[in-house]
């Protein structure tokens, strides 16, 4: 094929340039038309010279014939003889690529290139194949990198100078210190230790009483008791969830165009707090976040856990033009977050090319992308306690029987005489019925919504459920569909019904005032079906579906008229657009009329909508002929029903109908109204279940393709779900191109396993999957948050570009210990805190400092500045105003609740938080930067919030304990710093208070109070307040 084309090209070239030899002619054409253009417009970015200057783009060289045929990242630059398949021609035509980037070259030049390629691209340039040939990733070598290896058993070192009593963690640390000739530090004071432990584990300062109790406890396990208490405290989850939420780039809004708020996003935050407090094993913690929705389908917990996947930014405005790129951005967000937070790997760059430093080929990236392919952002509602709902519904049903019994009782005893009296004196005075009689619905049920009955027969929308939600209703549990269906049951004893009528009302409670529930106030009624059945279930007559004819509509579109609602075709609809914005009505004539059944008639209206239904509506009937009008007054059907019953029964109320008559009689008789009303009220209070909207995954998603250079227009085949090969072991498949799913590595599934479930299994599999790295990354995070810096200084990068561990054996031992402890974090916290290295002093030994100024070998404890949330929480705690209510929707910073509950809206972050370095929640963050800027000092000096806490603290120290000024100063120190002041500090403070008081003038109690506030304010501004030793 190729040879044939070359021949054709050769023939063309002959005819083109006449008598010259083909190659000479072709080369002449190249020299005249092609080379100058390449030199002028392409070489700057696509030549050996550009490569030498590090300006090479796309891995593509255009300065030799061989290089052009080899091509760059996107494949060969040209296919001789085939201009249409040659990327260089496509790019010059601005078809897909746009080259050169400074602007399209003239049509004549492009035509020259087309001709040249047709000629077979004759090219005399020698040059070798590109020196920058694509780097092939060597997985076998890659697996030898320290962090990608399997977990190894490490024994804590022994040494003559290491005391026998030393625990394993201390052994590793001491061995390094001995190796470097460092002296061991002393333990820190008990006051400092308890303050350190409180902030580290629960993020709050200890109270003076807690400090005192610890200081007074001389038992050997005094500190262990404190640690155990703190690990058992619910505040532990609030503190440690914040660390994980940084890594999970948690926020409650979409960012981008409108930064749409996600009211159900906070459930993920709550789930993390709960999971940590319950000490959910970390592997399960990871699996739930990757696939909780699949592992526990239809559960609140599962839905909340995968809030991890969907916490990233997502544009608010998407059009057909942008949807595909956005889809891959979204996958990229998930992959980068999974990579950074769980594996400590940088994955974002692999979207466009093989990882430059780590053994991660593009194909692995797209394998994970395909595993996430069916993961779509959205909201769903969940019943957080379906069992409780079921029990409540059952209880309600039993209770309801009492109300029914009361109605029966009334029907049997009271009704006959009361009705007879009324029939005699009142009935004759009642007016004749007008044309329209409104139905009082017996039952109103809907797929997506709850409906309630209002006076005058109006049926109103009473809240919707997100499609996809599993909901338990009277008819059983099921998934809520996206298309609404209303089913309304009514009854009548009247005969010869000529027409039915549907009124749709506007109301300020509806979107755009309605009448529809769609966002724009519209509705689309696909089909209205009315079935008539005899009221007496024993009756022999068969139910009939009424033949309806739409004869009138208040508003209709001539293309989508009312007739579409009764044409029997579910695909056509009566569409009422927003422009209507007023009450609407439709009249349907019953073909041939409805004679009515002898025992009375039950009518079931089924209204099928395209999406959402009606917000407020009413059903009515007419027994008069010529119904094609919607004029005329309304009256409730009750009187008509009573008259019809009497007319059919010789003006008597037959005992068989006593019970039914209670309803019809209720408007006219106080007692009947009471007993019937009570039954209705109770029925309306049927428990629905406590539905909560959760921002989670919803159905959807598409196939994922491998994208060359990460470009959606440059697809290179469908990607199959897969994992990182370098972290997969023990299976021959892992070196081949496509790893199907992780499950195939560990076991053969009997049925298809969701790829995200497989991803979670692979991620946590210590023997065959990423488990070893997962364990190393999380124990490093724990170390980092307890010691200020990780054993690996780059918590989100365990790859070649990251730091090497300072104590590799210790890291390995900790990772192994985590796995041995069943992946539970709390035992590991306990081990870390009970180590001597954690409890050592912050004191600096000058000799040690000379040897190891950076404290790599951990010879002293480094003071840490409190993180933003802790600063605010500590201020509230010290002021005594902290509200310890847990969980629930987020709050703004005027609330005294803990900062973990502050709203995280991407475009409007809480200034106090960002000012003290709370990160941008857009990418996984493993480590917060700690900055020092004057605006922070301004907050402490001048903000009303800090001032208020100073005032509250002043109140606390004034009103409790030692009433002397010195006593108050001591107490303030104990509250703020967990210690008493030194004599020097006390005297300075007393002098300051007195000086302030003097400056305020008269020696009054009010001025004394004010001076104390100034003193408290000073305490809150001190570095000691926001640093923990």
């Amino acid at each position: 094929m190729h040879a044939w084309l070359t021949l054709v090209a050769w023939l063309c070239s002959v005819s083109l340039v006449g008598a010259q030899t083909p190659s000479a002619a072709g080369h002449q054409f190249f020299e005249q038309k092609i080379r100058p253009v390449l030199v002028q417009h392409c070489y700057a970015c696509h030549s050996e010279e550009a490569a030498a200057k590090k300006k090479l783009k796309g891995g593509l060289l255009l300065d030799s014939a061989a290089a052009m045929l080899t091509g760059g990242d996107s494949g060969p630059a040209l296919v001789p003889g085939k201009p249409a398949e040659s990327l260089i021609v496509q790019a010059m035509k601005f078809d897909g690529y746009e080259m050169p980037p400074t602007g399209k070259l003239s049509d004549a030049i492009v035509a020259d290139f087309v001709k040249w390629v047709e000629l077979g691209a004759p090219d005399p340039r020698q040059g070798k194949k590109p020196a920058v040939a694509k780097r092939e990733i060597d997985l076998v070598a890659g697996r030898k990198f320290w962090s990608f290896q399997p977990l190894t058993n490490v024994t804590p070192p022994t040494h003559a100078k290491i005391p026998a009593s030393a625990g394993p963690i201390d052994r590793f640390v001491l061995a390094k210190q001995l190796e470097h000739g460092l002296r061991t530090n002393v333990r820190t004071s008990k006051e400092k230790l308890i303050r350190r432990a409180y902030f580290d584990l629960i993020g709050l300062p200890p109270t003076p009483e807690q400090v005192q109790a610890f200081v007074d406890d001389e038992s050997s396990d005094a500190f262990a008791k404190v640690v155990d208490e703190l690990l058992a405290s619910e505040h532990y989850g609030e503190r440690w969830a914040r660390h994980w939420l940084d890594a999970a780039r948690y926020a409650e809004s979409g960012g981008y165009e409108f930064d749409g708020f996600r009211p159900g996003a906070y459930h993920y935050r709550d789930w993390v707090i709960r999971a940590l407090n319950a000490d959910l094993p970390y592997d399960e913690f990871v699996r739930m976040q990757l696939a909780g929705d699949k592992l526990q389908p239809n559960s609140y917990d599962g839905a909340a856990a995968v809030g991890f996947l969907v916490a990233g930014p997502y544009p608010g405005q998407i059009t057909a033009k942008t949807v595909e790129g956005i889809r891959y951005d979204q996958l990229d967000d998930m992959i980068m977050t999974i990579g950074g937070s769980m594996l400590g790997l940088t994955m974002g760059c692999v979207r466009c090319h093989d990882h430059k430093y780590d053994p991660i080929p593009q194909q692995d990236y797209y394998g994970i992308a395909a595993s996430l392919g069916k993961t779509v952002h959205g909201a769903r509602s969940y019943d957080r306690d379906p069992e409780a709902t079921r029990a409540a519904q059952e209880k309600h049903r039993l209770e309801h029987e009492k109300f029914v019994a009361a109605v029966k009782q009334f029907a049997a005893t009271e009704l006959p005489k009361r009705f007879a009296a009324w029939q005699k004196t009142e009935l004759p005075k009642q007016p004749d019925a007008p044309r329209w009689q409104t139905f009082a619905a017996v039952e109103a049920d809907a797929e997506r919504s709850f409906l309630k009955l209002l006076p005058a027969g109006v049926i109103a929308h009473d809240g919707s459920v997100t499609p996809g939600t599993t909901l338990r209703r009277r008819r059983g549990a099921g998934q809520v569909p996206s298309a609404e269906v209303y089913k309304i049951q009514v009854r009548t004893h009247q005969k010869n019904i000529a027409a039915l009528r549907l009124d749709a009302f506007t109301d300020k409670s509806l979107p755009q005032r309605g009448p529809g529930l769609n966002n724009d106030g519209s509705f689309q009624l696909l089909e209205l079906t009315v079935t008539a059945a005899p009221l007496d279930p024993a009756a022999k007559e068969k139910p009939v579906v009424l033949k309806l004819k739409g004869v009138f509509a208040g508003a209709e579109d001539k293309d989508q008229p009312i007739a579409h609602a009764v044409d029997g075709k579910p695909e056509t609809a009566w569409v009422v657009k927003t422009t209507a914005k007023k009450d609407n009505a439709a009249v349907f004539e019953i073909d041939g009329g409805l004679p009515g059944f002898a025992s009375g008639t039950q009518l079931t209206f089924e209204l099928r909508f395209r999406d959402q239904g009606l917000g407020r509506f009413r059903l009515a009937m007419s027994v008069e002929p010529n119904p094609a009008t919607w004029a005329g007054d309304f009256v409730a059907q009750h009187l008509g029903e009573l008259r019809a019953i009497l007319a059919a029964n010789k003006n008597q109320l037959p005992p068989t109908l006593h019970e039914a008559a209670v309803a019809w009689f209720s408007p006219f008789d106080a007692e009947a109204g009471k007993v019937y009303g009570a039954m209705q009220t109770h029925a309306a209070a049927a428990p629905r279940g406590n539905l909560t909207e959760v921002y989670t995954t919803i159905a959807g998603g598409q196939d994922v393709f491998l994208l060359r250079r990460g470009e959606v227009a440059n697809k290179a085949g469908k990607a199959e779900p897969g994992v990182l090969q370098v972290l997969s072991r023990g299976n021959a498949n892992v070196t081949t191109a496509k790893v199907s799913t992780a499950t195939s590595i560990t076991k053969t599934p009997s049925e298809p396993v969701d790829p995200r479930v497989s991803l979670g299994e692979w991620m946590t599999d210590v023997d065959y999957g990423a488990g070893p790295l997962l364990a190393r990354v999380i124990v490093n995070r724990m170390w980092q948050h307890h010691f200020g810096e990780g054993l690996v200084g780059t918590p989100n990068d365990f790859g070649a570009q990251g730091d090497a561990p300072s104590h590799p054996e210790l890291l390995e031992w900790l990772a192994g210990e985590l796995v041995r402890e069943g992946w539970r974090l709390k035992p590991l916290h306990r081990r870390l805190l009970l180590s001597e290295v954690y409890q050592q002093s912050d004191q600096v030994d000058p000799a040690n400092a000379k040897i190891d100024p950076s404290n790599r070998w951990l010879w002293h404890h480094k003071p840490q500045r409190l993180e933003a949330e802790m600063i605010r929480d500590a201020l509230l705690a010290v002021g005594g105003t902290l509200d310890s209510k847990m969980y629930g929707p987020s709050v703004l910073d005027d609330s005294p609740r803990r900062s973990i509950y502050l709203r995280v809206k991407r475009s409007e972050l809480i200034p106090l938080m960002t000012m003290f370095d709370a990160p941008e929640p857009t990418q996984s963050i493993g480590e917060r930067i700690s900055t020092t800027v004057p605006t922070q000092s301004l907050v402490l000096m001048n903000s009303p919030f800090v001032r208020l806490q100073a005032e509250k603290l002043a109140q606390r120290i004034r009103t409790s304990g030692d009433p002397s000024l010195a006593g108050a100063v001591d107490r303030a120190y104990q509250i703020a710093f967990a210690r008493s002041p030194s004599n020097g500090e006390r005297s300075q403070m007393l002098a300051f208070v007195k000086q302030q008081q003097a400056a305020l003038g008269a020696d009054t109690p009010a001025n004394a109070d004010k001076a104390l506030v100034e003193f408290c304010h000073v305490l809150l501004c001190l570095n000691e307040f926001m640093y923990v030793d």
Partner: protein
Amino acid sequence: MFEHPDLILPSRRSFLRQSGMGFGSLALASLLQGQATAAVNPLAPKPPEFPAKVKSIIWLFMTGAPSQVDTWDYKPELQKRDGQTLAGADPKTGFFTTSGKCLKSPFAWKQHGESGTWVSDLFPHLSKHVDKMCFLHSMHLKQNNHAPASIELMCGTNRPGLPSLGSWVTYGLGTENQDLPAFVVMHETRPRGDDQIWSAGFLPKTYQALTLDARRKETIDNLARDAKHDDAQQRAQLDLIRRLNQEHAAQRPTQTDLAARINSYELAYRMQMAAPEALDIAKETAATHQAYGLNQPECGTFGRQCLIARRLVERGVRYVQIFAGKGVGGDGSVNDVPWDCHTDVEKNHRSCGQYVDQPAAALLGDLAARGLLESTLVIWGGEFGRTSDSQGAKGRDHNPNGFTIWMAGAGVKGGFHFGATDEFGYKAVTNKVHVNDLHATLLHLLGLNHERLTYRFNGRDFRLTDVAGEVVHDILA
């Protein structure tokens, strides 16, 4: 202050972290030059890599995106072919659907200045300054909706979470005046995209913008001392705080950030006085007020912002960005994207033009008169351009494929036109300038090499210009 001076050594990584420095080679280089200063204050002025032409930038951001063919990019062919099919109209250009038919500019065009620059009659004041302006007619970017494009224009790519130009500049150069913030953003209604447009991204918060909201008369939170205590009281407090903090720091000699924090109270105390002074436009003459149009309802707010901008750069502020608010014309556009002329370009641009014309011209004149234009670069432009074909009868849709911005002042040629769109002003075709190129050029003017201004985050050295960007040397003076 320290007992062990030899102990003030960087701890493994925390030293760099505390001082707000990453491993960027440039930042590291300057850090090594002035280690002690940088350790105490990461905003201390850092020498540029090579001599800088520009010290300060003021970006007048035309929120919502003005139309190039109705402002600075005159296209006689478009005027001629009103209503005719626009050759090459691409339905993927805009955000909505356009007609594919040419819509001529409803404005009158005239040539101005010695450069003979064509300007529509929207800018009677600015047109007097065309010989100071350097026009980039071939700007283009990728995103075709406001927030993503604004993010791309300020941060280099459209993904949120990256630092904006102002933060990068502050990171690279620090600031001349420690008593004022280095990077100031002014807005009225917050532009669509909000904080994301001026984000410090993953850079330390040291480099984040201070925002001044015109609706709150540029009040700075927490700047004013509590009304309950006077200066003497506060001074006494601060003196005590300093004394006790010094005692605290002396016991923790390796903790360098404690010294920075002690210093930051003094900086805050000075800022408390310096910032109100900088923002106090009452100190300006009546003539200045009049020149900036302060008393005119149609441009008074923008006038005040421009005047404040001048006062800020005069005092050494590095980077000021003003997001133009909404004119009083009322044309159906939304407050957070005032120039967004989907329905009626004439009505919209008339009102938006009035809003910015006189104040922006006054700013140029004022800066020039004070000699500040020799070290300040003023940039005028929005997040993209508009379509040359119509949307509806009289509107224009978004168009990221070609638009004009101009710069005036230090380091760029005046009365100069660079790049061009096609004959309809629809697409940039010659000497195209991408956002990355613009950023590379701006950093160059500030004395920074865009390839060397990097910050290590999550395992990668990030640049404002991502992996692209060429300095547009042709426009440099």
